[in-house]
């Protein structure tokens, strides 16, 4: 983990109520797709955790949804604004387990971390498939960007206005995959956990006090013991999860 001052380079709407922000600064603490950063906002005591969508030597890209006052304020930050950010948080996805035909499953703002993950897997010569789920066509983002990277992409929308009508799990039928990576709201993760046929790993959210393992604010129970979502996660293995239904 590192603390640094980052400059907003871009902060623009991407879809209905969803923004993309590019931050310039030290990215050396970011080591794996699926990690997150924790951003201090003016007038807010707790930092806001947001997944890394992509990063390079000098920039970090995040995609965030307007949810409450914090993300609302964030969306008004102009280019040039500086932010205090903790980077390199969380374990991230393990690309080593992908096999030859990994499947990436993103639901809503669970999609962003799939971008850097797809990049790494494609660079390693894997055949990457992605299934993205949204509420409706106006909410869809990054389907084209993932396709441009070279992934085969299926979109599902709850109202059927784009792609398959239904949830991501309705779009899994007929896909042949070696391993899966999933990030999205918990009901989606549960459905994926039940439906997907291979081993995989899933990324979770929890309200956080610190984001680096100090406060025990984010702990969940797993088959392998208590896990702090911020430090031992956010990515957990399918086999660790304690869901019993």
């Amino acid at each position, binding site marked *: 983990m590192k603390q640094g001052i980052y400059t907003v380079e871009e902060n623009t709407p991407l879809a209905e109520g969803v923004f993309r922000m590019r931050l310039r600064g030290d990215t050396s603490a970011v080591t794996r797709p699926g990690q997150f950063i924790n951003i201090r906002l003016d007038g807010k*005591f707790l930092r806001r955790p947001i997944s890394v969508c992509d990063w390079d030597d000098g920039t970090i890209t995040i995609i965030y949804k307007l949810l409450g006052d914090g993300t609302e304020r964030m969306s008004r930050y102009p280019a040039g604004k500086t932010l205090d950010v903790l980077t390199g948080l969380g374990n991230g996805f393990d690309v080593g387990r992908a096999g030859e035909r990994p499947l990436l499953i993103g639901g809503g703002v669970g999609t962003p971390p799939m971008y850097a993950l797809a990049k790494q897997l494609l660079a390693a010569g894997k055949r990457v498939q992605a299934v993205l789920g949204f509420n409706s066509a106006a909410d869809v983002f990054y389907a084209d960007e993932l396709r441009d990277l070279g992934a085969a992409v299926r979109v599902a929308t709850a109202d059927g206005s784009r792609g398959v009508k239904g949830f991501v799990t309705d779009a899994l039928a007929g896909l042949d995959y070696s391993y899966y990576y999933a990030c999205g709201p918990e009901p989606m993760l549960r459905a994926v956990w039940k439906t997907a046929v291979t081993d995989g790993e899933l990324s979770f959210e929890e*309200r*956080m006090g*610190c984001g680096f*393992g100090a406060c025990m*604010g984010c702990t969940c129970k797993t088959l392998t013991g208590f896990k702090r979502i911020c430090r031992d996660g956010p990515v957990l293995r399918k086999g660790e999860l304690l869901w019993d239904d």
Partner: protein
Amino acid sequence: MGRLSVTLCGIELDNPVIPASGTFGYGVEFAELYDINCLGTFSFKGTTREPRYGNPTPRIAEAESGMLNAVGLQNPGVDAVIAEELPRLKKCFHKPVMANVSGFSVEEYVEVCRRLDAQAQVGWLEVNISCPNVHGGGMSFGTDPHMAAEVTRAVKAVTTKPVIMKLSPNVTDIAQIARACEDAGADAVSLINTLMAMRIDIRRRRPILANVTGGLSGPAVFPVALRMVWQVADAVGIPVIGLGGVSSAEQVIEMMLAGAAAVEVGAANLTDPWACQKIIDELPAAMDRCGIDNLRDIIGGAKQWEKT
């Protein structure tokens, strides 16, 4: 002795800055970030006899200038603390540590304190009789002077190290509880623990915390904590450790002027992991600006203005 050093129950601290229990784990996460030997000491996570998961999530909510937590004393239990956490800590921290203890019965406090008292690394026992987030224990001991005295007496009977009773602000008269602890043999008191609080998600029309209520801490509580430290320092002769909302060198000075012999820093560690290191670094300059040569000389330094 340096300009920053103070004495806490006979043990000299290089400076009065002490990360507060529950915001510093058992030290190792922070030792990866900076040399934690710069601290006066730190108070480790509230430890109970059995391992505890704590409360369901969400355990954290935000407030104006602060936060609520309802962690519910998640900890690995005293056996694992002795077998695993203390040996790990030994590699990165070479000063006496403050052992924070919680319990659900007098017997539990006694047993956990007795076992931690026997550990060479432990310098003080900080007995938390003020956790608002667990049922049938914690705070119920800290809101009744008779029970507070009973825990103090029982712990003192089985320990050799200084015993610091950690007090709850969720009482009508905190000075009365402090006096009860002093009379029962406490070597010091620390205050405040968190203030009972809650938040409601207005869109979902339900409490944010799964535990419904939680404890408020952070900058919002500093003036309340300062007032209580002032009142307790008046009421007792034993050292008072001040905490609640401290996040700057100036606030450390302010707490000491109110009567604190040392100062703990809690929530500030969560939003800025380097907070305590920065506060210690900034203390000399803040002292210079206030014309303070030695911190130990200012403890209770505002007392001449006591209302009569």
